[in-house]
């Protein structure tokens, strides 16, 4: 193996180094002619390569870019180094120039002689020397770069919605109504959620030709990114399916807090206790409240804020539901005493106080209490002034808060989405991007994102659909990262360090070969894995150790006047 591994064979290499004056910004401090002369003097070091070094006014201008284009063509350049400003300014500009020629854009390098040299070193000779060092480093680096080929993909405009409840259905209908195809994954036997499987929404979803429902199914694996997801869906009946989609919506809803988990609440199957949701469904189905022995209750207490202390947050929509239910109970059985036991009432939004008025008007009693401890059908109430009392109610309806759905943790880990303090999926930004998440291409709808009432949930679903419609446009192309990691099978021992640190799920294990393998379509080239590999088996393209170290070696090789002379001491390395 030759010492200069990675350098091209003799005779075929032509390196073009172009020094941008950037008006007075660079040329005013750095003697570019001296830089050119110094580089050409070192040219002999690159055995077999020819060096072309020129200066130009503004390389980023129209004429400047044309100049570079012509130079690449006329000189048959195989490598390009541009000494100019920060890569943040014009790296992509010059990559674009290369893309318009036969020169692969990854055989080019920009060297910052403005922000790093001209603008920060007062002494001109120091700045000039520094620029020469940097440029020598850049030449050395570019010689060790490999051509990389971008393969643009068309984005997939289809959407996968996880969860067929109110928000999931609303999002699906909004997207399908705008020409997108939707795959709706529902864990249960049919979509509907709290609205019910015979609701108008569920009917509309079933009938829509562009919505495909996967019933009794679950998402088991996701790889990819915005515009290019591959989702594995396991079905109860039938083999697993892989669904391709450009975006994913998490609409898995939430569940209610288990009332007996509140230390102030205890009851058993022998008590006449029916939680809020069950009572709502009963009445919605036309039923009447009855005790276990079949008789009608004479007194009903709705106990608000069950679990409030345990959860530490207000779920925001339960008071309204409880008062609405209380009013309905009064309407169904006017002779029944219905009491709402609460410390405070949370009734936000337009119509919130209306619910309270209607409840009052229908004769719902209110007991304000600091605390209410339930044992079976007996409530021990501590009034606002501290006076204790006990009262038995024929029927007690606990009103518990909202907690995240069971699947939230699993899906969060799978999609690498953080959870908020309450355990719901965390939105990207409360104000600016409430439907997005930290993972590009994954959106939130409904109570999976936090407790909310139905109207708000539907509004959020609409916003989610809107986001997707604007971010994921059919016909658009995206270019997956090419500066990705690769694992050399011959050297890998499958220890899995890289797998552990990959935040994109881009590396998987191959136990038969005993190695790890990078999925280049998913890898984002962050390089975490490169740092974690103890061996020489894994490297990230375009940022290999060899490229980086040789650039530094070369840049430090010359003794730059501004730096102090290193101590001459005999050191055994």
């Amino acid at each position, binding site marked *: 193996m030759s010492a200069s591994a990675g350098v091209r064979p003799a005779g075929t290499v032509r390196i073009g180094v172009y020094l941008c004056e950037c008006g007075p910004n660079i040329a005013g401090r750095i003697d570019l002619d001296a830089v050119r002369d110094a580089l050409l003097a070192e040219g002999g070091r690159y055995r077999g390569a020819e060096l072309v070094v020129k200066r130009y006014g503004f390389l980023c201008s129209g004429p400047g870019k044309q100049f570079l284009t012509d130079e690449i063509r006329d000189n048959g350049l195989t490598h390009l180094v541009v000494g100019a400003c920060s890569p943040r300014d014009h790296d992509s500009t010059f990559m674009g120039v290369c893309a318009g020629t036969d020169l692969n854009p990854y055989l080019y390098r920009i060297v910052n002689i403005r922000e790093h040299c001209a603008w920060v070193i007062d002494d001109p000779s120091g700045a000039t020397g520094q620029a020469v060092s940097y440029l020598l480093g850049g030449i050395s680096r570019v010689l060790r770069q490999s051509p990389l080929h971008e393969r643009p993909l068309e984005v997939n405009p289809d959407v996968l919605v996880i969860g067929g409840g109110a928000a999931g259905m609303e999002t699906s209908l909004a997207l399908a109504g705008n020409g997108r195809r939707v795959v709706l994954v529902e864990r249960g036997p049919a979509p509907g959620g709290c609205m019910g499987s015979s609701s108008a929404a569920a009917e509309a979803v079933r009938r829509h030709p562009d919505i495909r429902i996967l019933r009794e199914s679950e998402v088991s694996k996701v790889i990819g990114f915005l515009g290019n997801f591959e989702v594995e869906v396991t079905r109860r009946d039938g083999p697993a399916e892989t669904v391709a989609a450009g975006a994913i919506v998490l609409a898995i809803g939430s569940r209610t807090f288990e009332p007996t988990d509140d230390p102030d609440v205890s009851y058993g199957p022998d008590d006449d206790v029916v939680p809020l949701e069950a009572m709502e469904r009963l009445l919605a189905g036309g039923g009447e409240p009855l005790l276990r022995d079949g008789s009608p209750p004479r007194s009903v207490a709705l106990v608000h804020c069950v679990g409030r202390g345990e959860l530490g947050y207000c779920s925001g929509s339960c008071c309204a539901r409880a008062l609405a239910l209380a009013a309905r109970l009064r309407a169904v059985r006017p002779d029944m005493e219905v009491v709402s036991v609460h410390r405070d009432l949370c009734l936000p939004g337009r119509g919130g106080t209306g619910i309270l008025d209607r409840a009052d008007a229908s004769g719902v009693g209110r007991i304000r209490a600091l605390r209410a401890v339930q044992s079976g059908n007996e409530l021990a109430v501590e009034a606002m002034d501290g006076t204790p009392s006990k009262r038995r109610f024929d029927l007690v309806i606990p009103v518990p808060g909202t907690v995240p759905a069971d699947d939230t943790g699993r899906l969060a880990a799978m999609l690498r989405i953080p959870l908020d303090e309450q355990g719901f999926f965390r939105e990207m930004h409360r104000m600016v991007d409430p439907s997005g998440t930290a993972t590009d291409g994954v959106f939130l709808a409904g109570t999976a994102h936090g407790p909310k009432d139905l109207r708000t949930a539907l509004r959020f679903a609409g916003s989610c659909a809107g986001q997707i419609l604007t971010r994921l446009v059919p016909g658009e192309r995206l270019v997956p990262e090419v500066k990705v990691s690769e694992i050399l099978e011959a050297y890998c021992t499958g220890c899995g360090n890289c797998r552990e640190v990959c935040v994109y799920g881009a590396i998987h294990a191959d136990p038969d070969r*005993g190695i790890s393998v990078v999925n280049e379509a998913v890898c984002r080239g962050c390089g975490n894995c490169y740092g974690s590999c103890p061996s020489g088996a894994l490297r990230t393209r375009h940022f290999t150790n060899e490229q980086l170290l040789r650039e530094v070696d070369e840049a430090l090789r010359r003794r730059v006047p501004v730096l102090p002379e290193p101590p001459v001491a005999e050191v055994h390395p």
Partner: protein
Amino acid sequence: MNSIVSRLDASAAVRELLGWLLGEGRTDAVLTPRRLPEDGSCDLALLTAPEGLDRAEPLLPVMTTNAGQALSHLSLSGRRLTAVLKPCELRAFTERVKREQGSFERLLTVSFVCGGVFPLGRVLSDGPDTLAAAALEAARRGETPAGVRETCAACEHFVPTNADVLVSSGEDGCRIHLCTPRAEEALEGFGGERVDTAPDPAGIERVLAARSAARAELYRALPVEGGLDGLIDLFGRCVGCHGCSRVCPICYCLLCDFESAGLEGDLPRFRAALDERGGLRLPSGTILFHLGRMTHMSFSCVGCGMCSDACPAGIPVAAVFGRTGGRTAALFDYVPGRDAEEPVPVTVFREEELDDIG
């Protein structure tokens, strides 16, 4: 040949020569063994200025690393280098040049009539200074020092044949023989009296006879005739560290075939072997590694003895490889390190050969 007379002992004379070359700008750097008295150890040093030579000991009878191996990568640079090499190190380097692992292009080689090196264990117990003195004493008497590596005591190639500069010791100092035009050019103006002489043939004959006898004895003692049982006797203690391969100047592969994934076992295969044979040794491939390495490189073995010295299990690897390699090379009339232009046998195709093997 044109030779320079020196009153200094060989090591000091070469030190002086290296300093002169650096001082006169005839070379950019020199490669030489060096003593590190503060640590009681020694190493191989690359020095770029005469000031660094005060601890250099060019003829130190110690080989911490085969300089032919260390040199090969360095020789590919654009600098002019002067390297002090023991005869086997020069031959090893020649073998590496044939395999594109080094270049003679900007290299001046300095070698000498070699008495051998002491095992690393002796460096640890006696220290470099004692050993240097013992070697010097033996060189003055024209003898091989007692206690050197067994491959050194059995080495017949102790007079280098293609060095640029060859140093031979005598009772009254040493002679620096300029063997090539490159040597003449580099050393023009160096030193004092010039004579036309060569290393003393009679003295060399004497040493050669002793070495050949030692070689015969060394090989006779090897249990190599016993088939698989003999191999187990030889390599049974091997722990599979592959240290022999790493210190070998000829083994240049970045990833040895016998460490690669392709030759690894896996649990199903071990299970099958267990069922078939009733038992197996782990780690696997102990003897395969040695037979394989012999196949790959033993005909280029220069007998430096680094392998035996490094072996934690005390296996006489160098003797085995030297013997096998020597016999294999003889089939092709090949002598490793003799000539940089002589191709490696495995790269040469002849339509008819080795009719008697089969």
